[in-house]
């Protein structure tokens, strides 16, 4: 990991297209401005990790047995309807 120290108002340039600027610091919170092209995704790290985890769960629960759950899922919905 590259470590740089910046003061408020200073920036970091990443590649040609991405610039981070330290906008303000209040206590433990650092406000960072990010300039990047629209096609570059910028997210807080925790949400990125959560999405990765969810994709992993979704892809790991796809055995034939799991897939049957979707077939059963539909039938249960239909059964509920016929009972009411």
């Amino acid at each position, binding site marked *: 990991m590259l470590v740089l120290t910046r003061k408020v108002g200073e920036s970091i340039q990443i590649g040609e297209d991405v610039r981070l600027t330290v906008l303000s610091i209040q206590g433990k919170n650092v406000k960072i401005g990010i300039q990047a092209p*629209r*096609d570059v*995704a910028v*997210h807080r790290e925790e*949400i*990125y990790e*959560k*999405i*990765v*985890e*969810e*994709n*992993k*769960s*979704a*892809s790991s*629960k*796809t*055995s*034939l047995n*799991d*897939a049957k*759950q*979707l*077939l*059963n*899922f*539909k039938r*249960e*919905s239909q059964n509920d309807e016929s009972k009411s």
Partner: protein
Amino acid sequence: MPEHILDTRFGQIRYHHDAVLNFTEGLYGYETLKQFLLWEDKAYHPFKWLISLERSDFMVPVINPQLFVEGYQPQVSGLEKWKGLLVVVTIGESKQDVTANLRAPILILEESKLAKQVILADVGYSLKHPVILK
């Protein structure tokens, strides 16, 4: 038009090139997987399957979120032209456990078959929204 064949745990699937989606950035956590077959089998309707053409054991169930979430119209700047919408489904132990990730939908540009998974800024959208079909 030539058909392709894919070996999957569902057996051999014949598919047409038009059913292949091109994820230029892959899926989150799977950025190297770019080509996915969007497979529709009537038995699973309205669920569909996104099956990787590059890793035969990788697949996720998906569904059109507008079937069960009213007013779900994610706005993503720079991607206003995108029409098709899918969300990744996670299968749990029981009917109550089938959830959809509304926070990171897949947008599809119908004509070119480009697809992209995006993360919505709206924290109100759940990663595990229960799927309840009427």
